[in-house]
């Protein structure tokens, strides 16, 4: 909370022609009860081959969003071939027996549609966004990519070269260098989350179309797929269409656990890793530790605790580093909850001359959140989470996106309808318990990407932890 010296407030200029506040309008209005949350019903259907359908009807606007969710992602990449899953996603719009890459692009646009594939740690998605008027043709195109992608060698050579160039360009962007290095250092090369999902120059060069087909064959099957459809459709219409398009799709192997559970690396004593970006006017600061999987029973207490610490605009980190000290344009924290325990992460881009001061404020807040949280602050965070929910479920695209984790992590279909009650049940003791369990300032990996010559000595002087140099990949620099 910012506090101004009293003299400043008294010196405020009041000379302009002011409006007179009408009586009774000098305090904020009292609000009526918030609207009841009721997500339109989610209809579940299952095809005989094991494919699951989740359908929500929304007829207000003539658009449809469909997302096919498959239960594997970069987590399943072979250790020396990180990048396979994300390359499969890139290749999915690059050819079928009847359509070239250019055909796919041209037909998608002609339908006024967008068609994308992406892969994120523990899942892969193929997404269609289309006007109702051209939905039927778009379904054919969508199914063709999902069922019949051919991964032509000539296209793979292009995509691979593009990816290698992406990796060159990525190292120009300090925030992404910091993100990637933090994961590498935090999880290490023996853990899938320690290997970059886009791959490295070495791993991408090692990947062949056989690897692409191998991931596709293992992952793309009815028994491993949920099709989410939201928008101007009917449940029966979607079910019939899914049966027509995907009814003959192979079930695939019972793929409940595509990746063996990796052991989390032991937490090491807090250390600062500096990556040089010569003359950078800002430093990218990241603080991380290994936290929880999406299946954690502490999901709701963590949600509330993180909202107090760094999940919203008025959270402590942003109030401190931005609104009080003006070291940054924004400071935030979050928990990457995945199939296996993912990272707790706090981050900001800070002005280079205040890199050390910013780190000290981060450490202050990571310590302070372990203390008892004032009731008013707890109430604000809980109300924020409970009441902003309708805005998260507004459009068809919003709802389809919110159903992806429901599919990936097998959440109950009433997850959003019971969300508010779960948040309401979180107590001050819960918040303190999860803060102490998952935010430990004595065991965090700190990555700072910035002008080493200017920031390294001040960082050492903070005595937050020993300082080590790392290269752009987060690996020890050659001596």
């Amino acid at each position, binding site marked *: 909370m910012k506090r*101004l010296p009293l003299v*400043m*407030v008294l*010196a*405020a*200029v009041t000379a*302009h022609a*002011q*409006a007179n506040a*009408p009586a009774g*309008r000098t305090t*904020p*209005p009292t*609000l009526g009860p*918030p*609207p009841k*949350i009721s997500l339109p019903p989610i209809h579940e259907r299952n095809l005989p081959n094991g494919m699951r359908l989740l359908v929500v009807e929304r007829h*207000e*606007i*003539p*658009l449809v969003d469909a997302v096919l969710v498959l239960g594997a992602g970069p987590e399943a990449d072979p250790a020396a071939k990180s990048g396979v899953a994300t390359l499969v996603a890139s290749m999915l*719009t690059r050819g079928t027996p009847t359509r070239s*890459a*250019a055909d796919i*692009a*041209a037909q998608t*646009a*002609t339908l*006024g*549609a*967008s068609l994308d594939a992406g892969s994120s740690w523990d899942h892969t998605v193929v997404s269609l*966004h289309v*006007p*109702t*008027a051209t939905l039927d043709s778009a379904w054919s195109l969508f199914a063709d990519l999902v069922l019949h992608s051919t991964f032509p060698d000539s296209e793979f050579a*292009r995509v691979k*070269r593009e990816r290698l*160039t992406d990796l060159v*360009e990525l190292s*120009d*962007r300090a925030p992404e260098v910091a993100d990637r290095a933090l994961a590498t250092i935090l999880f290490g090369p023996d853990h899938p989350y320690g290997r970059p999902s886009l791959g490295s120059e070495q791993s991408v060069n090692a990947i062949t179309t056989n690897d692409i087909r191998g991931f596709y064959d293992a992952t793309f099957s009815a028994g491993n797929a949920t099709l989410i459809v939201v928008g101007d459709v009917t449940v029966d219409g979607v079910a019939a269409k899914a049966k027509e398009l995907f009814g003959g799709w192979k079930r695939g192997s019972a793929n409940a656990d595509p990746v063996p559970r990796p052991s989390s690396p032991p937490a090491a004593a807090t250390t600062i890793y500096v990556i040089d970006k010569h003359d950078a006017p*800002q430093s990218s600061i990241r603080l991380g530790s290994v936290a929880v999987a999406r299946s954690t029973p502490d999901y709701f207490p963590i949600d509330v605790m993180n909202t107090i610490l760094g999940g*919203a*605009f*008025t959270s402590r980190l942003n109030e401190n580093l931005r*609104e*009080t000290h*003006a*070291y*940054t*344009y924004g400071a935030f924290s979050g928990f990457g909850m995945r199939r296996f325990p993912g990272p707790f992460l706090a981050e900001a*881009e800070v*002005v280079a001359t205040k890199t050390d001061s910013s780190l000290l404020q981060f450490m202050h807040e990571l310590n302070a959140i372990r203390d008892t949280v004032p009731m008013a602050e707890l*109430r604000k965070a809980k*109300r*924020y989470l409970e*009441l*902003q929910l*309708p805005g998260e479920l507004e*459009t068809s695209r919003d709802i389809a996106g919110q159903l992806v984790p429901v599919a990936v992590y097998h959440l109950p279909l009433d997850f959003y309808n019971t969300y508010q009650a779960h948040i309401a049940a979180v107590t001050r003791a819960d918040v303190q318990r999860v803060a102490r369990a998952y935010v430990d300032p004595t065991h965090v990996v700190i990555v700072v990407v910035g002008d080493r010559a200017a920031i390294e000595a001040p960082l050492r002087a903070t005595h937050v932890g020993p300082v080590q140099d790392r290269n752009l990949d987060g690996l020890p620099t050659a001596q």
Partner: protein
Amino acid sequence: MRTVVAALAALCTTAGAQVPRLAIERYTLPNGLTVVLQPDHSAPVVAVRIEYHVGSADERPGRTGFAHLFEHIMFMGSEHVPLGHFDQWLEQAGANNNAYTTHDVTSFYEWMPSNALPLALWLDADRMGWLLPTMTLARVDVQRDVVKNERRQRIDNAPYGRANETILAALYPSADPYSWSVIGSMTDLSAASLGDVQTFFKTYYAPNNATLVVVGDFAPDSAKHWIAADFGSIPRGSVVPTRPTVAPFTLAHDTTLTLQDRVQLPRVYYAWHGVKVYSPDDAALDLLAYILAGDNASRLYTTLVHDRQLAQDVGAQNQDFRLEGLFTIVVTPKPNISTNAVDTVLQAELSRVVDGGVTDAELTRARNVQRTAMLDRLAGVTERSDQLAYYDYVVGTPDYVSQDLERYEHVTLADIQRVARTYIGAHKVVLTVVPQT
């Protein structure tokens, strides 16, 4: 959008996406505040937006970036809202908020569960009517430093970040108010005084220089009552803002510039003088940009990226401001490919469009993508309020969705070829960002 029932919906007759007509009410308060209401009860959410008719094109030399800095200052408390409480009260009600500044407008918006509407209106009224009594240099200084960090994050510490401001300065005459960037210069941000804040507020942040838009789940009678009570007593501005003007100009020759940056690959920016928003050639230029580089079957992508593999990426954009425009093509050569090699192929492709035009299939595709993009802008209450507010400022009515879309329906193949010849056949600015030596 959500209010559409069969009786209300007047559907576009052309093939593809159907765009519903919105039920909109517009009126003006005695103090000059324009109010636009668009009730829609399909989800229990509402968006409030106040668009002030001021942007970086209204700034004076020596104070570039001030309109955007002022946007930040509007969050630093007002007479009845202690510092920090604007955001805290909104979050406690489940509301999110943000704002943005462009060359033309400064737009403030909140989106929230429907019961929080009176709070958002009250907070927005307080900062419109009662900002200055509690404003201090210390509060300005905090946001000045935050904005400098925003500039560092978006421009100075971002690869290719300074390209945009370099192009604007090279393309437009120095007296043209679109010749500087919205974020402004560090020197000018440092120079902004409390006096500037007071003058700017009195000039531009008056009810008669703003449009208030409410979209979503609310009762119009209640909203009108709250709006009258909260905003009605704010006096009309005593200073009439001077609107920016631009003089017509033509580039007399090509300008070639080089900018060093901490990047590994060069990137080439081509910029031509374009047209203002909603002017006769604007829609054709939008479609031309899509046909050139909008998807993976587009002209430049096919040749430069896919077939010849000379470029990592290519983009084209028609930027249409209220009084000015520019048309840009941006291309990143692949490693070890020269900018000259890319330029030769790119110029040949552009000549092919200028000389031979485009196909009906290409035009249809570009148009269909535009139509879906319009549906997307209407799908959520926040985006819809943005569209309605902008229409209201630029064309004088929020009810412009159909006319906006019709512009694209009327574009012919001959139009595409003509605008290609007229605009990208003219002189240009070519900026090459190169790795620092």
